[in-house]
């Protein structure tokens, strides 16, 4: 992040840089919208992250004006059965003749579907959409309002969308007052999209350019083979929009920024080693010829310069990048449009050009992925949402709503007593020649065997197996002697095995030193849980309140997804750091109890295991604030503790 100096001059340059970054971002965003309007099927679509607001609305407006057909909007509550063609039940019963409705997918065939509140959409809706994307039936624009630490869009869908626009850091964006339509760039794209639609498939993308895309994927740790394909298509669409016949460096840069960077699993540190490992031509060559043709990188760095003027602004601390990107310029290919090693410079340029806030988000999401044990998805959570997903138990009288199943027997049973009456009515209506419930679709009125009315309808009541998520909060501070910490770990491991049997999900929060870490977002992967537990270090202060606060956030999310929650806190209760990171036992303890009281209302079951050698009053009062079970663990064996706890936290059988 660019830290401006204290001087006035420093501030103004910072502001200028900021404005420049916002401008660059806007240029990318406009091109992204133009690209998806040009080739929705080849690009899969556009993933817009960020909250509702005038900027997002403006982009959606542009999309509507630029697309061949304006996008069809649906949201998370759309009934998945509407996607495919079918019978309209209420209409069919009401009129007595078959009423069909067209499927949404057939409706948008070849165009764009816009899914709002995508982070709340369940598998029932997203599964078929992902499949439709695979079939190239439509392009998808998703509006994802998830928070940074929340499970967002189902990864299976995100994976299939080429373009990602991140509007979450509002400070780094263009001014709201800006009228996008008046921008020269916007006008240029508006004029060119129609032409680009026919041209982009002819745009050449040569092997070198493709190799750069693949190298960028390798450097960013992107394994999926969909990403390079989408990036390649994006580069070609971008070239077509610029009126070029073949892909050039700018197009590659754009593809890296908009398609690859958001999928990054690592910052480009290992690229050098990897390049050397599998590509002999990247050996350090003493002579550094400038590229035959200078290709100004978008951020106006001198592309021939091997080392960037300053290290890339955000590099994960554990992986410092100090090596100069190896330059290799084979002399025999003088008129190559894409200089070798372009991807590395392009990634650097892309990183340098991003506004600082976005970089923080990006780094955060990479860390989150690492914490999830190689990208454990939130799909499990999402799966719990939506109707029509449980075991049927009985019926209830109402017309089927989204995803509900009609309970036929109950429906017909409800109508049976009225059959003679309705038959008479129908006959009377037919006799008077009025259009009646008999309906011509079903033949003469008298032949309709069952006369149903919409208010006969019953639907299946479904009981969903509520999943349980156990959130562990492990105190790893210095006051937990190392011995105790490993015993606590042992207890958690035993509990994990219990969770496996119950098919619970587990999440793991630890606190030590300055704050709390979410080591593991809710997952069913026990292996991941165990791995992060084993790696948990100890020592430092004891910010109990921060740990509990983090747990509260996780629990709130789990509850939103409809799961019940069990909270297990392992601590000696000796809080000595406040949430703000200030030392002070008194206040730290008070804060901890305060958060604990909130948790008492949030978590369905609460348990505190006192890990101090002698039972500690601090831990007991904390358990009281939690209104939970208090279990001292003096010199206990892990397994013994595990059994006690297992009994204590077992969810009540229903």
């Amino acid at each position, binding site marked *: 992040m660019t830290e401006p100096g204290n001087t006035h001059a420093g501030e103004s340059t910072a502001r200028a840089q900021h404005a420049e970054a916002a401008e660059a971002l806007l240029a990318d965003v406009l091109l992204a919208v133009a690209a998806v309007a040009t080739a929705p099927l080849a690009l899969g679509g556009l993933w817009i992250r960020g909250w509702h607001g005038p900027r997002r609305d403006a982009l959606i407006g542009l999309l509507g004006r630029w697309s061949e057909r304006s996008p069809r909007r649906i949201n998370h509550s759309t009934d998945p059965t509407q996607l495919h063609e079918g019978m309209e039940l209420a209409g069919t019963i009401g009129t007595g003749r078959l009423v069909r409705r067209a499927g949404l997918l057939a409706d948008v065939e070849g165009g764009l579907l816009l899914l709002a509140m995508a982070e709340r959409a369940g598998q029932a809706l997203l599964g078929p959409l992902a499949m439709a994307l695979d079939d190239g039936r439509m392009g998808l624009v998703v509006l994802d309002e998830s928070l940074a630490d929340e499970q967002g869009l189902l990864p299976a869908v995100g994976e299939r969308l080429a373009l990602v626009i991140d509007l979450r850091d509002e400070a780094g964006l263009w001014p709201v007052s800006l009228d996008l339509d008046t921008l020269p760039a916007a006008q240029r794209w508006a004029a060119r999209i129609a032409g680009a639609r026919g041209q982009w498939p002819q745009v050449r993308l040569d092997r070198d350019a493709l190799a750069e895309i693949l190298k960028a994927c390798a450097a960013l740790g992107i394994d999926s*083979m969909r990403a390079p394909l989408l990036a390649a298509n994006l580069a070609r669409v971008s070239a077509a929009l610029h009126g070029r016949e073949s892909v050039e460096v700018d197009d590659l840069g754009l593809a890296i920024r908009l398609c690859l960077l958001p999928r990054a699993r690592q910052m480009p540190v290992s690229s050098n080693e990897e390049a050397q490992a599998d590509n002999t031509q990247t050996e350090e060559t003493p002579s550094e010829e400038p590229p035959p043709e200078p290709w100004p990188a978008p951020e106006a760095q001198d592309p021939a310069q091997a080392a960037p003027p300053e290290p890339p602004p955000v590099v994960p601390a554990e992986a410092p990048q100090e090596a100069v990107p190896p330059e290799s310029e084979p002399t025999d290919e003088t008129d190559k449009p894409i200089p070798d090693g372009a991807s590395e410079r392009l990634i650097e340029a892309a990183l340098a050009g991003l506004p600082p806030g976005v970089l923080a988000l990006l780094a955060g999401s990479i860390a989150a992925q690492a914490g999830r044990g190689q990208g454990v998805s939130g*799909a499990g959570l999402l799966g719990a949402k939506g109707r029509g997903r449980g075991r049927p138990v009985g019926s209830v009288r109402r017309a089927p709503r989204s995803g509900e199943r009609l309970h036929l027997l109950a429906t017909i049973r409800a109508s049976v007593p009225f059959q003679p009456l309705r038959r008479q009515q129908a006959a009377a209506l037919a006799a008077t020649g009025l259009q009646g419930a008999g309906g011509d679709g079903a033949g003469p009125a008298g032949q309709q065997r069952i006369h149903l009315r919409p208010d006969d309808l019953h639907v299946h009541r479904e009981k969903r197996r509520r999943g349980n998520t156990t959130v562990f909060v492990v105190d790893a501070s210095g006051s937990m002697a190392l011995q105790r910490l490993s015993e606590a770990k042992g207890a958690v491991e035993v509990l994990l095995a219990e969770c496996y049997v119950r098919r619970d999900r587990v999440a793991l929060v630890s606190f030590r030193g300055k704050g709390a870490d979410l080591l593991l977002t809710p997952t069913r992967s026990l292996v991941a849980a165990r791995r992060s537990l084993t790696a948990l270090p100890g020592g430092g202060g004891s910010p109990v309140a921060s740990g509990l606060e983090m747990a509260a956030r996780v629990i709130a999310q789990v509850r939103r997804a409809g799961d019940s929650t069990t909270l297990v806190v392992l601590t000696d209760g000796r809080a000595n750091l406040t949430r703000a990171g200030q030392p002070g036992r008194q206040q730290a303890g008070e804060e901890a109890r305060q958060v604990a009281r909130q948790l008492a209302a949030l978590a369905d079951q609460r348990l505190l295991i006192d890990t101090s050698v002698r039972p500690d009053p601090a831990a007991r009062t904390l358990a009281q604030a939690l209104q939970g079970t208090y279990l001292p663990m003096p010199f206990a064996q892990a397994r013994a503790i595990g059994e006690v706890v297992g009994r204590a936290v077992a969810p009540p059988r229903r």
Partner: protein
Amino acid sequence: MTARSRPVYPFSALVGQEEMQLGLLIATVDPLVGGVLILGDRGTGKSTAVRALAAVLPQIDTLPGCPYRCVPSACAGLCAACVPAVDAQPRPEAPASRRGRSRAAGAAARVAATATVSVPVPVVDLPLGATEDRILGALDLEKLMTLGQKSFEPGLLARANRGFLYIDEINLLEDHLVDLLIDSAASGENRIEREGLSIVHPSRFVLVGSGNPEEGELRPQLLDRFGVAVEVRTPKDIDLRMEVVLRREAFERDPQSFLASEEAAQQALRERIVAARRALPKVALSQELLRQLSMLCLKLGTDGLRGELSLMRAARAAAAFRGEKKVSLETLREVAPMALRHRLRRDPLDDTDSTARVARLVDEVLV
């Protein structure tokens, strides 16, 4: 869910996923091997490979319009295609497989005259959010409401009969849907006893599931339904990745000519599969290898005899595909991890890679 009218990427043009290809081919040569479980990350070409299967398989004969794609000589007698007079009126008294015999015999006689048609082997996608009705089939509301007829609307299990049922991200599938599959996958038929329906229809399919085990575990009962489990990794070699992308691009740019250029290879593969199916009953497994195979399973501690049986079947199918008259040691070594890696009794907290465990013992025992 509509019929895939779009061109499908050809199986023969897949690059760099040998283990997955072999696993799928084993299942095509001998469907009795059981299902194929594909373990790996997104974007590694799992779906592409599975969907490409239909085109390399020889077409199957059935009656025109039969939603279950019955074998003409053994039709279930459920639909109007084979029993024109029957309006699929369900008979509650006995399962179709038994009570249908006399009726089916009559139907078979009637349909003998009817021309059969060749249709592609079905490869059916089961989306994650599918409802029970969609999978099992349900009362046809449309007919009920408009014609007052009680008739059965076949679901995905009917459509997958004699073909493949593919579930991407199977580890995220809801438990109650998994239960439906487990039963059908074992019995080869789908039983519907609800809403006044009482129907049994053939549903013999090869279950193909894919998913990333890191994102959730599969229930052991479901794991057991898979004959082979293959691991798929994204190619790390840049040249190989280039090749993947270039081919895919070429295909997307001009599917027709890409398909045309692959047709010879596809045809060769098709013939190989047909030949392998013919040769399969004659492929022998020597006593010596059988002993080693049992030893391997014993040492790995697989449950019961399932490990042995499925490894034997898979090895014979692989040998048949490779034109071996006797299963060779190499083939057995190659197939062993696929057939066994998901059958190890597993401590949920044990981090050790089961593939590594199998590989170690394969080196030790199969020499």
